[in-house]
């Protein structure tokens, strides 16, 4: 279907019993400023076309004008629900380009905050996903638990959402006093809370009926569209960068990778949910074996990496965050290209939505867990 700029379908494109519905950019279930043009036949979706760009902030161009260090806070604003993993992807690219060796303790701390961030991000996903399906209460429960992690991060770096904790060559600072104890308290509390969510929502018959068989994506389609993270694993592709292409200190830890089968909303949701248990395991291992040492390598204030290009990628809560960095030998990056998982997943939306109902598109958008700050950049 083609749509003219005046939001009209091209002549003769719309059947008589169909009509267009404009969903968003102000809609409670589009998770930000996403607009989806729905072509519906009654309640049945014939087509769903995402329309993006409402949150475009020219990140990639702005980054070219700033020094390598100054770009770190900018990356926080992309996937603002999971700022730590963004920073990690970016600083890893700079370190690879400049050949900087990161101390072991810093690597472990990076894993620690990245996994706590994953739990926090998945909690936001869980709450909003339940909200999309009409259950109000899980949202407040999830936010209540996320609060623990945000408090930890606040103690660590003073910020609750945009941390700027990763630095080129390490992290900003060591753990504050009491951090380990509080994290252990959280580790003790969290499994029982996760089981509570399961009983309340994930094992609910209505939830299963709403999500099983909805928004199905085959493994081939998922790979072809560049899906990654839980969206890819929900379709049965066993691929996790933390395990298959270990970065930072991930090769030191034991953890499982939950994989789904049918690639529907339910499998994606279960994959995400189970990942929280695995992240808890990693956090525990980090706390048990945290090595002593520096948390930051010596890096010159004016960093001039040699000319060249590099691509690094990390497993963010949403999928593969990739950074393509080009240096011309100057103090500012020549080009920063950001590969956002949400962008790739949003392209799957028309594939997933076809033939389902208006209520289902809300569940589908919730299940791919997009962040519009990352889609539009």
């Amino acid at each position, binding site marked *: 279907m083609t749509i003219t700029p005046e939001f009209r379908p091209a002549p003769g494109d719309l059947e008589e019993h169909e*009509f267009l*519905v*404009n969903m968003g950019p102000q*809609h*409670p*279930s589009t998770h930000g400023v996403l607009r989806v043009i729905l072509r519906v036949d*009654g*309640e049945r979706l014939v087509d769903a076309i995402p329309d993006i760009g409402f949150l475009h902030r020219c990140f990639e161009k702005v980054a070219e004008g700033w020094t390598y260090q100054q770009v770190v806070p900018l990356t926080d604003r992309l996937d603002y629900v999971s700022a730590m993993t963004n920073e990690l992807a970016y600083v890893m690219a700079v370190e690879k380009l400049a050949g900087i060796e990161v101390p072991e303790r810093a690597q472990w701390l990076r894993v620690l905050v990245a996994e706590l961030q994953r739990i926090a991000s998945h909690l936001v996903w869980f709450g909003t996903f*339940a*909200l*999309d*399906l*009409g*259950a*109000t*209460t899980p949202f*407040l*429960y999830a936010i*209540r638990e996320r609060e623990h992690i945000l408090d930890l991060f606040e103690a660590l770096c003073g910020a609750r959402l945009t941390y700027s904790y990763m630095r080129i060559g390490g992290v900003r600072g060591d753990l504050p006093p009491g951090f380990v104890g509080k994290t252990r308290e959280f580790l003790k509390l969290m499994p029982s809370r996760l089981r509570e969510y399961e009983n*309340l*929502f994930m094992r*609910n018959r*209505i*939830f299963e*009926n*709403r999500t099983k068989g909805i928004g199905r994506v085959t493994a081939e389609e998922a790979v072809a569209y560049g899906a990654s993270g839980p969206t890819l694993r929900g379709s049965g592709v066993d691929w996790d960068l933390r395990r298959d292409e270990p970065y930072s200190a991930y090769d030191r830890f034991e953890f499982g990778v939950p994989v789904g089968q049918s690639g529907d909303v339910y499998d994606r949701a279960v994959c995400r949910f189970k990942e929280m248990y695995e992240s808890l395991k990693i956090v525990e291992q980090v706390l048990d074996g945290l090595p002593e040492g520096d948390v930051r390598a010596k890096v010159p204030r004016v960093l001039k990496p040699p000319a060249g290009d590099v691509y690094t990628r990390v497993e963010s809560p949403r999928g593969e965050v990739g950074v393509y960095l080009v240096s011309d030998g100057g103090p500012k990056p020549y080009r920063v290209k950001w590969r956002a998982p949400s962008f790739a997943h949003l392209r799957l939306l028309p594939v997933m939505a076809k033939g389902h*109902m*208006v*209520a*289902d598109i*809300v569940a589908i958008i919730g299940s791919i867990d997009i962040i519009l700050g990352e889609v539009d950049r």
Partner: protein
Amino acid sequence: MPADLGAFLQGVFDQVHLWASQSPFWSALFSLGWGIVKVILVLGFIIVNVLVLVWLERKFSGRVQSRLGPMRVGRPHGWAQTIADMIKLLGKEDIVPRAADKALFVIAPVVIFTATMLVYVVVPMGPRTIVSDLNIGVLYLAAAASFTVISVLMAGWGSSSKWSLLGALRGAAMLVSYEVPMVLAVIGVVLLSGTLSTNAIVESQSGLWYILVQPIGFLVFLAALFAELNRVPFDLAEAESELVSGFNIEYSGLRFAFFFLAEYANLLALSAIAVTLYFGGWQGPFLPPFVWFMLKTYGFILLVMWIRWTLPRVRVDQLLEFGWKVLLPAALVNLAVTGVYVLLT
């Protein structure tokens, strides 16, 4: 003292009634005046209870979600919050969309409130506290309760917004699937009590509440009630996260207040009906009948709220399937078994 006062008022009423019945003119005027008094009483009852119910729902959902709910406006526990909200709604601009069908758009809130008030006519709040003890009470109920959907359709179509139209279509589709099982479930009660009068149904439960002999009928009634009330898990016509607010999305200010009022008035009315049909109405030991009636009704309302704040929402086709493939057969079986039982005893 209250008993004396009641007897005194009764005496005054009887005197005036006797005096008025001597001439046809005064008799007609008397019925009209008495009717107006009844309407005002019912309206007052509804408004006071709705204010309490909205506050109760907020506090209750706060409890469920481990937060406090309203605390600031009015101490203790923000009791004045709903009053403040109502005043705020009165001060809002009254917006009618340019493309709207003005007549339908304007009438719809009035219709939904009237339909809700109609239900109160046959709610027995005590042995003699009933607006009108119709001998076809239950039949009247079934007719009056489904009027609200007409208003949903009027609002959805009249707004000429696609979202509200979708909400209205859902409302209409839901009506056909829950109304039939609901009425069939109620017929089980009617068979047992042998009367259509709501007050007589309450009186016939002096020994045994009908929920104990009609458990399946009650469950069918309960499920249909959630659809009728537009509440989670069947709040499809409103569906905050899908249709944003469904049929009433274009309404603001006082007109929206009417929808809001009607929603809670409907909750109270149908809970009262459920109590009347299955929980022995105003019957109970020690306490006065009206107190028993209110206690049971509020208990039932808390059950409805508890379910609302726990469950996710079903999809519209799933509700239709549930209505026709589960509720209707269950109601029919219940009816057949009840019929055989009544025939044998």
